[in-house]
């Protein structure tokens, strides 16, 4: 019983903390540019403000347009129930890594449809670019997770992997894990529309990918879409921190283990957030047709992880 309460609590915590880490990311970027930046709690205020507002919906869009934010938000809530955070068990242990990948795909598909729904040029351009990237992201994302599953004995169940990895001890820090984790980190940047794939803070409608698809949303719909994309970043970071580097997670429900688990996950997610901020500050956005190269590199890394696992 206590396990279930803990795993439900960690999902709620994940959703609640998503805007905070988005705020920390913005703040870190601002500090690196010698700016003060807005408060780390600003994303909470932004989302709260948007959720209170009415929506303006394009006349050319269908009913689907209004449903999409809820579908996107729902799929992210579902994923947060499936992802471990500080505790090893998850509230919804029914899915595995593959279903997680395809819930992300569902989210992306919905967003792409939403971009096309409004009938605006920028939505269409954003959607077409997103689909181009998605074709390249999916194989490397799947392959890096497969390498992880192979490393831990072949199970793709989410809650088995951290246990297995911790049980294996230091020996697990094999090339396969590091390669798969690097590949996963590149897909994290691509999937979450970060620099060098996309510029989340751009004002240039012609270069937008993710923001282009959201251009027609307003009010509550926009609030939900923004919240969902913050949650997506949070879920990806927690996957990196719990599936690939699970050390410190609470394996039992003892208060001490939970305390250590919380501290460890905070430190790890903060580290990932700062790494993203650093990359965004020192890298220019890549030319659009240069992005496949980077995603191919990610694919090659996870392929190497597989090879080192099964052949070497």
């Amino acid at each position, binding site marked *: 019983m206590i396990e279930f309460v803990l795993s439900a609590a960690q999902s709620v915590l994940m959703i609640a903390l998503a805007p905070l880490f988005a705020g920390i990311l913005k703040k870190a970027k601002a500090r690196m540019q*010698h700016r003060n930046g807005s408060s780390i709690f600003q994303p909470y205020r932004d989302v709260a403000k948007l959720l209170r507002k009415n929506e303006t919906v394009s006349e050319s869009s269908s009913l689907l347009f209004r449903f999409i934010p809820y579908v996107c938000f729902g799929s992210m809530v579902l994923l947060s129930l499936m992802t471990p955070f500080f505790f090893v068990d998850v509230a919804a242990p029914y899915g595995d890594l593959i279903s997680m990948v395809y819930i992300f795909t569902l989210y992306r598909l919905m967003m792409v449809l939403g971009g096309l729904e409004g009938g605006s040029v920028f939505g269409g*351009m954003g959607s077409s670019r997103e689909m181009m990237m998605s074709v390249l992201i999916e194989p490397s994302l799947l392959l890096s997770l497969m390498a992880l599953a192979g490393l831990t004995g072949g199970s793709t169940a989410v809650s088995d992997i951290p246990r297995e990895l911790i049980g294996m001890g230091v020996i697990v820090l094999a090339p396969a894990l590091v390669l798969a984790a690097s590949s996963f980190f590149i897909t994290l940047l691509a999937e979450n529309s970060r620099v060098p794939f996309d*510029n989340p803070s751009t*004002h240039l409608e012609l*270069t937008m990918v993710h923001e282009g698809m959201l251009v027609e949303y307003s009010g509550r719909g926009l609030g939900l879409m923004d919240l969902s994309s913050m949650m997506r970043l949070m879920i990806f970071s927690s996957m990196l921190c719990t599936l690939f580097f699970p050390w410190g997670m609470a394996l039992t429900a003892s208060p001490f283990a939970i305390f250590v688990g919380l501290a460890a996950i905070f430190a790890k997610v903060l580290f990932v957030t700062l790494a993203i901020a650093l990359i965004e500050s020192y*890298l*220019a956005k*890549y030319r659009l047709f240069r992005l496949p190269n980077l995603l191919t590199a990610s694919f090659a890394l996870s392929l190497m992880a597989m090879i080192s696992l099964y052949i070497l």
Partner: protein
Amino acid sequence: MPETDELSQKIRKCLNEGLGLACMYARGVPGGHVLEAVMAGDRIERITVRVEGMMYQSVTPDIPSASLYEREIYETHGIYPAGHPDMRPLRSRSSWGPLSGGRAIPHNDIFGNGIFEIPVGPIHAGVIGPGHFRFSVAGEPILMMRTYLGYSRRGVEKLMETQASADNTAIAERISGDNAVAHTLAYLQTVEQDTEIPERARFIRTVLSELERICSHLGTISGIALDTALAVPAAHGSALRESILRLNERICGHRLLWGMLRIGGLSKDLTETALDEIEREVMRVRFDAEELVGIMIRSPSFMDRAETTGRLSYEDAVHLRAVGPVARASGVDADVRKTRPYAAYGLAAMDVPKCPSGDVYARLTVRKREIMESVSMILQCINSMEDGPVRTSVKTEDGFYTGITESPRGETVHCAHIENGKITKYKIRDASFPNWPALERAVMGNIVPDFPLINKSFDLSYSGNDL
């Protein structure tokens, strides 16, 4: 229509002598119109041809750089250039228009399977000027891009038609706010004519004009960094620009240097402390700007975006008569400060930076080197300045006068016809006007997400173009 072959021949003759078409416009005279063409190079030549009726033989097929001016003449005076290959509306609109006889914006003249047209603007996501762009794309590569401007038209030329003795500097400063000094100096040339301006005033005018250039170029460099999502150099560049803006405010009370220039000289002298402060600040900016561009070009991801992007060939730059840093980045050797020095430019040594490749990187490099030159010129001027008056009285004569200056964006032309002490026709040609078609050429073959970067590297003015 024999009279206009005359126009074409006269322009052609000047082109062969190395002059370029700097400006062309129509002027109403009793019983008809005359076409005026101003040819500029190492000297200025004026061509005047009378038009009978409301139509004449277009010179554009022969001289491509005349295209814009002929379209403008049609919209302002209704004189049709027969045989003009491209009579799209320039500034007027059917739904809304400051000029009568507005026409609808046509679709791009390009057809085929899978070719889409993307209309963008005039309202943009960022805080920039209003401009409507039509991209014809096949996937991401741009096959054709057409600009439709005119949304910020205010009728400045008409406002300038006052008594020649009236001080219109306040209007001239507002033609293109961040090029205020260059525009005002061009205006002053038309009314000060041959008056000998005190030397101290000329030196200070040069200093102000170069401060304006540093400020504008820093803004562009920072914008280029921002458009490639290179956040740290972008913030660094904005901070540098801000430090110059604040310097401007301290020395003359306005961040964009408005209100300093007056007919006959300056509205106030700069004190020794102000000059010392300028000297200190520009020295600092010189090193910081060098470091800033260094950070940018040492980043491989930035260089990948900047090199070969938005290439404007030397031939196109010459044919369209692009001006300013844009032309110099395509290898054209043109700088009014060097060819026909005004203010105190004849007294200071300067180098005209050029770059042959014509891409975003070349325009960045030219701008960086111009900042270095500007700093050197400011220091030279401050060092050779002597105490003296900064204002004199001016007697304006009747006749035709041109004022041509080099603004941060390039050659800026003002023409004034003065009759009986009154300006009867005033024509302004901002540096951005001939550079917009150059932008249309430069984006061809690039991909849509690179357009904002190319546009920023051109750094064109909307208000200066729309007038």
